[in-house]
C-alpha cells in the first residue's frame, strides 16, 4: 500500500464498522486535503456520524486504515490524543458544559497543556484572556460571557461549541449538523462563520439542510449504507440519479 500524499490531511481507506451485524461503515474511503472544506450528506443511517466516531477515536474500525497529517495512524489513538493532534469535533446535539459560564467553556477548550497537575496549579495568563476575548467576538457571545451555558439558546450553544472548537486550534474540524434547529438568519450567519474558518483550517461538515450546503458552496460527498455514493459539486451530486433515488427523491 502506498503512503498517503503529503498535502492530504485526512485519509480513510477501506474502513468498515459493524454493530451486531449491521454495517454502519462499509469499505469507506475518503480523502480530505489540507485547507479543504467538505460537506457530507446522506440519509439517516448512511454512516455520517459513525465516520466521525472512527476519525475521532470514539469507535475503533473493524478493518481499514485512517491516517492524519501525513502518517499518524488514528486507529491506534484514543480521543484525547487525537484531539491533541488537532482534530476538533462538534456534536450533532450541541454539547457544551452546561454548568460552566461561556467564558469557562472557552477557557477549558483553549489549546494548552492538558495534564492534571498543570490544571491544579496553573492560572490563566493574559495571552489566554486575549484569545478568549477574540473568540467571544467571533462567535458574538461577548455580552453573555458570564452566563451559564445551560441558559443559552439553542443557536447560541451551537456557536459556543464552534467557538470551543476554534479555541482548540485544530487543523481539522468535524462539524455535525451545525445548522440544526436554527432560524434562517442564524443558519446564514453560521455558513458565513464556517466559510471564514475554512480559510485557515480544513473543515468537514455533515448536514441535512440542502440550503445550508448550497450556501457553503463546497465539494459534496454523498454517503449511502456506509460508503461513498457520489462526490462532486452540489449541482453534480443533485443530478446523480443514484443520489436522487436514495436521498433527494424521497
Amino acid at each position: 500500500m502506498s503512503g498517503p500524499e503529503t498535502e492530504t490531511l485526512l485519509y480513510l481507506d477501506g474502513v468498515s464498522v459493524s454493530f451486531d451485524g449491521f454495517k454502519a461503515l462499509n469499505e469507506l474511503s475518503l480523502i480530505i486535503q489540507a485547507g479543504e472544506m467538505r460537506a457530507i450528506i446522506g440519509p439517516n443511517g448512511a454512516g455520517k456520524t459513525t465516520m466521525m466516531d472512527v476519525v475521532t477515536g470514539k469507535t475503533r474500525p473493524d478493518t481499514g486504515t485512517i491516517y492524519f497529517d501525513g502518517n499518524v495512524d488514528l486507529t491506534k489513538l484514543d480521543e484525547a490524543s487525537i484531539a491533541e493532534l488537532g482534530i476538533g469535533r462538534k456534536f450533532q446535539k450541541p454539547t457544551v458544559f452546561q454548568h460552566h459560564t461561556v467564558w469557562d467553556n472557552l477557557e477549558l477548550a483553549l489549546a494548552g497543556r492538558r495534564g492534571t497537575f498543570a490544571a491544579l496549579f496553573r492560572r490563566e495568563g493574559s495571552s489566554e484572556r486575549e484569545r478568549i476575548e477574540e473568540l467571544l467576538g467571533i462567535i458574538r457571545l461577548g455580552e453573555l460571557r458570564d452566563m451559564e451555558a445551560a441558559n443559552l439558546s439553542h443557536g447560541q450553544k451551537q456557536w459556543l461549541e464552534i467557538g470551543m472548537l476554534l479555541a482548540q486550534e485544530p487543523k481539522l474540524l468535524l462539524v455535525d449538523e451545525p445548522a440544526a434547529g436554527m432560524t434562517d438568519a442564524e443558519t446564514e450567519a453560521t455558513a458565513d462563520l464556517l466559510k471564514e474558518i475554512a480559510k485557515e483550517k480544513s473543515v468537514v461538515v455533515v448536514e441535512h439542510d440542502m440550503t445550508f450546503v448550497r450556501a457553503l458552496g463546497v465539494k459534496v460527498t454523498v454517503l449511502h449504507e456506509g460508503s461513498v455514493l457520489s462526490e462532486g459539486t452540489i449541482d453534480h451530486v443533485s443530478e446523480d440519479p443514484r443520489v436522487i433515488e436514495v436521498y433527494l427523491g424521497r
Partner: protein
Amino acid sequence: MIGSFIRNGFDRSAFFVILVLVAAAFVVPALALYTTPASPFHIPGYAIPLMGKYLTYGLLALSVGLIWGYCGILSLGHGAFFALGGYAMGMYLMRQIGTRGVYGDPVLPDFMVFLNWDELPVAWYGFQSFPYAMLMVVLAPGILAFVFGWFAFRSRVTGVYLSIITQAMTFALMLGFFRNNLGFGGNNGLTDFKDILGFNIQAPETRAALFAASALALALAYLICKSIISSRFGKVIVAIRDAESRTRFLGYRVENYKLVVWVLSACMAGIAGALYVPQVGIINPGEFEPANSIEVVIWVAVGGRGLLVGPIVGAIVVNFAKSWFTTGALAPYWLFALGGLFVGVTLFLPKGIMGTLGGGWTALKQRRASAAAEAGVSVTDTDGPDGGRLKTEPAE
C-alpha cells in the same frame, strides 16, 4: 504555586465554613473541659466523641460529595476506604495495648492469642509506629483506590456500572475481613483500645483533642476541596461530569482526572476512618457493609451535593437525627423516619438542604437583579429565544 492554589479557593463562604470549624475545634473542647456541669454552656463529656464522630462522618461525606457532586462518580463503596483507614488506625491502637490485653501477650493482640497464632502476621509489622500507621491510613485506601480506579476509568466504566462494581468491591472486602484467617480480628474487629500516642484514650482531654483534630481535619479537607474546585482542574472535572465525551474530544485525559480526584477522595475517607475509630472505640467489618456506603451517599444527597458544605451538613443532620431518634419511645420508628427522609429529599429537595437554601437566596438575588433590569439596567442579552430568561432556580 500552592499558595495561589489555596488563595484561589479561599472565598467568603469558604472563610466562614472554616471559621466555624476552627472555632468549634477550640471552643467545644474548652466548654467541655473548663466549665462546670451547672454552667449553661457546659457540654457533657459523652457528647464530645459523639460530635467528633459526626465530624468524621462529615469528612467522609465531603469525600463522597467531591467525587459525586463535582465529578459525577457515584461511589457505593466509599465505606471501604473509610474502613481501611479505620483499620490502619485500629492496628496502631491494638499494638499500643501491649501487655494490658487479657492474656498479657506483649506483641500479639488478644484475638491472635485466642486463635493460637504464634507470631504477628506480616501485615501488622510496623504498626507500633505512629507515623507508619498514619502513612498507612492514607496509603491503604489510596492504593486500593488507585488500582481500582486505574482499571475502571481506563476501561470507561461509568454511571450505574461503576456504582455497582464499587459496591462489589466493598462487599468483597467485607466478606474478606469477616474471615478470621485474614488476621484482622474477624467479626469482632479491633476493640478495647487503651492509649493513643501515650495518652489514655478514655481521658476527657484525649477525647477533646480528638474532637479538635476531627474539626481541623475537616476544615483542612474542606479548604483543599474548595481550592480544587476553584482551579482549572475543578472546572475540568465538572466538565467531565456534565459532558464526558466532549471533554475527551477537547483533548483531556478524562481517566487521569477521574483517577486523581478519586484517589484523593479515598484518602480523605481513610483519614475520616482513622479519626473515627479512636472516638467510637471499635472497628469491625460491618463498616464495609454496602448499606453503610449507601447511607453516606444519602447524607450527601440530604445536605446537597452541588456544594461542598452540603455533604458536611447532611452527615451531621442525619446522624444527629439518628442519635436522637434511636433513643426511647421513638426507637421503633427510626427506620420509617430515615426511609421517609430519603424519599422526601429526593422528591422534594433534589438539591438537598443547602442547595435549596442557597437556591432560595440565589433566586432572590436574581429577582432583585431582574427588577433592576426592568428599571433600565441591561444585565443580559435578550436576543435568543430564552437567552434573556432568568432562571428562578439555579441549575445543578
